[in-house]
């Protein structure tokens, strides 16, 4: 199974070998999801008996991150949707995107995406799941921005990436919290004792993170705006990613985690509110759109809202209706997107007000469209009907808010049905406009996939027993335990049937009397300024501005300002720390006594430093530098470091020679700063010096650890036959360090040599 999941990455690489100027490679790629479909179908009988398939492969055991995969009912459902619809999409795209020069990259992204999606729904390890989650965001970024010559396409790809990526970040935080609370990243392990999370005081925080991740991915209000924008992608991508699979990842995640985190007031009410609001908000928005894809996008949003809503209700019936609705929606919505793709491809427009009567030229698609629309409206004998019945049943049973919930669902369903009619039926009926008379029925591969999807919707609807077992298993795997009611076409006369009939009638009435028009679009776009999208992009723009001004202040290109800021920050930081613990308690008697030599030498050095600071002559400053150096040399002599003294002495001599040779040929010091800057710098420097002195004093109070020194001193003669311990350390104990050091010196010499010998380019000399 690990190989099956990860194979897409390999396939995407193998595409390099194929020549996409011909037709057959595109169809060859379709074999990949088709093979996967067959592979996973082979596990179906077992799953239907309630078995699960677990595979575990160690990856990073120290971080509890392993390739744990688990195939159960819910995973199976999603896996089949991904691979099955994926196969159709691959075939469709082969015709739809024919002659696109970037077809190869398209299929490569698609393969990566399939891998990511499969990994996402099969992972049993939270960290692994997160990795695949991010991979879907990234591959969808490439797919949305596939027409990268178009700025709008690039922009919406970026927005989608920003929103889903931000959500992914939240999700990771949530997962890490879960991991640290539950001591485990394996979902199965965590499930063995769920209260460990729900009883934790951090439980609300976990929910915030997880919800943020799921809502951003599944485009819930107020993070919904990336999805309509993502319709810039080619239609197969919209059909696949933005209706059937990826946007359902959030639903999948919450469904998967619901046994772990669910059935708590926070969980239920948040999901019902957010899902319910999105459901209604997006459904109303769909009313005002005239672009076919926009209508589909908003109705998808609404459907996603409904899924979260059902998850929020959380009863066993709700879970069953959730999984049913997922399949219903995937089938009819993918079909509609594909149909829209064909219409767009053939007529070059997606504006619903300009389309009509296309049944005369695109008959197979008209059939598919009508079937899909019927399913979306929930006409009896379609799968949509079964889904809708279950949803009404759920909401009616969800006491104490049954009335409110049912009303919300009813309104959303009516609007969704209307949107389905508009996008599935309207383009094909009415007057055929003159310019579309020449439209030809496209190739088989473009009308067969949507027709197949729409037909599947009817098939499952007419014979509910076909899908019943899998749906039951899927609901079981997310917590439904008691025997679930069988899927039935006829429930008898009941309030549910009444609601269904009312839904269909109302949607039909709306379709007949409410024609889409551009004026309504204009009306609604007046509120654009207050939409979450505008607000969030406004915030983002402000953030960008702030970052720019911040960068401009801090990274202004003046070296000394950098030094100054770093030092100020350092001083402030250390001061805060030190002032808490500042107490001096130095035993003066224990210090070495001060002799007249030392005082004289120190005074000499300080005077020399003063000279360096205030002189305008380079010669004077070089001489003062050497005085400082020789002064240090004397201090080394006083305190038992003859080696240091000798080295300091020779180096100092050489430095003076060096400076004399080079610096005297440079111009005199410029007096570049005014007094105010000098005083400012002086204060900063004084504070820094003071800080260092304080630190030095504090360290003096601590007893030093002499263990290492003693080891070297004790072993200098026995081990290294040397009596000058400093030298023994250099050439013996730490010989490797010295070795590296002389290498560094060599590099310095080479640097100096090459820098001076290097001939200047004529252009370099200004």
């Amino acid at each position, binding site marked *: 199974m690990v190989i099956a999941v990860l194979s897409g990455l390999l396939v995407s690489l193998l595409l390099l070998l194929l020549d996409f100027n011909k037709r057959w490679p595109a169809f060859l790629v379709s074999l990949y999801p088709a093979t996967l479909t067959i592979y996973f179908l082979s596990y179906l009988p077992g799953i239907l008996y309630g078995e699960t398939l677990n595979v575990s492969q160690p990856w990073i055991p120290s971080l509890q991150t392993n390739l744990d995969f688990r195939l159960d009912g819910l995973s199976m459902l999603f896996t089949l949707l991904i691979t099955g619809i994926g196969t159709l999409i691959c075939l469709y795209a082969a015709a739809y995107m024919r002659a696109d020069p970037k077809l190869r990259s398209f299929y490569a992204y698609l393969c990566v995406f399939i891998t990511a999606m499969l990994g996402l729904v099969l992972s049993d390890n939270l960290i692994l799941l997160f990795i695949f989650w991010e991979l879907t965001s990234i591959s969808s970024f490439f797919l949305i921005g596939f027409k990268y010559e178009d700025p709008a396409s690039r922009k919406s790809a970026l927005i989608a990436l920003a929103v889903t990526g931000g959500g992914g970040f939240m999700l990771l935080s949530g997962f890490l919290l879960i991991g640290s609370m539950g001591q485990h990243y394996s979902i199965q392990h965590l499930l063995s004792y769920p209260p460990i999370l729900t009883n934790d005081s951090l439980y609300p925080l976990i929910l915030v993170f997880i919800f943020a991740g799921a809502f951003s991915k599944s485009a819930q209000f107020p993070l919904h705006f990336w999805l309509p924008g993502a319709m810039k992608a080619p239609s197969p991508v919209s059909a696949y990613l933005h209706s059937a699979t990826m946007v359902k990842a959030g639903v999948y995640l919450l469904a998967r985690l619901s046994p772990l985190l669910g059935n708590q007031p926070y969980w239920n009410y948040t999901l019902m509110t957010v899902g319910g609001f999105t459901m209604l908000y997006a459904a109303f928005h769909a009313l005002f759109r005239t672009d076919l894809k926009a209508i589909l996008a908003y109705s998808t949003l609404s459907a996603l809202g409904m899924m979260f809503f059902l998850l929020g209700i959380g009863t066993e019936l709700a879970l069953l209706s959730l999984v049913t609705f997922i399949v219903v929606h995937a089938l009819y919505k993918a079909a509609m997107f594909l149909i829209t793709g064909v219409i767009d491809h053939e007529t070059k427009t997606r504006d619903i007000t300009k389309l009509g009567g296309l049944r005369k030229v695109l008959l197979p698609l008209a059939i598919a469209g009508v079937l899909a629309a019927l399913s979306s409206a929930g006409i009896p004998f379609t799968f949509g009907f079964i889904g809708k019945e279950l949803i009404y049943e759920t909401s009616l049973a969800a006491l104490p808010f049954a009335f409110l919930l049912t009303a919300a669902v009813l309104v959303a369903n009516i609007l969704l049905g209307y949107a389905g009619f508009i996008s599935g039926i309207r383009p094909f009926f009415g007057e055929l406009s003159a310019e579309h008379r020449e439209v030809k029925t496209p190739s088989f591969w473009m009308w067969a996939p949507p027709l197949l999807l729409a037909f599947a919707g009817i098939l499952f609807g007419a014979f509910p027993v076909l899908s019943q077992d899998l749906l039951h298993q899927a609901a079981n795997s997310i917590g439904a335990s008691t025997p679930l009611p069988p899927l039935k076409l006829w429930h008898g006369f009941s309030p549910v049937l009444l609601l269904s009939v009312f839904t269909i009638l109302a949607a039909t009435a709306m379709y007949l009397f409410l024609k889409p028009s551009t004026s309504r679009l204009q009306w609604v776009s007046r509120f654009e300024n207050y939409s979450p999208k505008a607000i969030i992009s406004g915030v983002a723009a402000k953030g960008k501005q702030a970052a720019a001004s911040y960068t401009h202040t801090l990274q202004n290109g003046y070296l000394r300002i950098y030094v100054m800021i770093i030092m100020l920050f350092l001083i402030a930081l250390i001061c805060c720390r030190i002032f808490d613990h500042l107490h001096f308690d130095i035993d003066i008697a224990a210090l070495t006594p001060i002799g007249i030599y030392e005082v004289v030498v120190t005074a000499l050095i300080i005077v020399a430093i003063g000279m360096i600071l205030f002189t305008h002559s380079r010669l004077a400053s070089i001489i003062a530098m050497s005085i400082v150096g020789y002064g240090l040399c004397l201090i080394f002599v006083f305190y038992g470091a003859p080696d240091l003294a000798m080295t300091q002495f*020779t180096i100092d001599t050489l430095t003076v020679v060096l400076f004399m040779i080079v610096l005297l040929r440079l111009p005199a010091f410029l007096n570049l700063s005014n007094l105010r800057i000098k005083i400012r710098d002086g204060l900063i420097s004084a504070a820094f010096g003071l800080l260092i002195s304080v630190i030095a004093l504090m360290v003096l109070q601590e007893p030093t650890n002499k263990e290492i020194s003693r080891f070297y001193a004790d072993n200098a003669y026995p081990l290294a036959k040397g009596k000058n311990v400093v030298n023994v350390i*250099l050439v*013996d104990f730490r010989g490797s360090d010295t070795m590296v050091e002389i290498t560094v010196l060599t590099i310095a010499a080479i640097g*100096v*040599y090459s820098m001076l010998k290097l001939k200047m380019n004529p252009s370099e000399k200004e």
Partner: protein
Amino acid sequence: MNSIILRTASAYLLPLLLLFSIFILLRGHYEPGGGFVGGLTAAIAFVLHLIANGLQKTRSLLRYHPGVFIPTGLLLSFASGVAPMFVGRPFMTGLWLSEPIPVLGTIGSSLFFDVGVYLVVLGVTLTILFTIVENT
């Protein structure tokens, strides 16, 4: 710099200083001194000669390009570190002759290491200074 006193003095000082630098190098293991200081002292000896007589004369006195000392020294130090590995001991283990040699005392691999340091320091310093003098 054109000073007859300095020139005359440097003629005598150069061999003396060089001798002194070798003395410092060799005593390093027992008394203050060692490869670093020795190399620097030798460099100073040449620099003094350079200041008194000019680059040309010092160059010809030295015969080799000072850069030659660097790889020689590096190689010597490295070889003294590797040598113990041939007798099955870890890198940089000190190897010692059992009998002390007159004047030098006990000879071990770390002495060669120090000589290498001496050569590198001398070579680096002279390379830097010669290059700079030459180009100003």
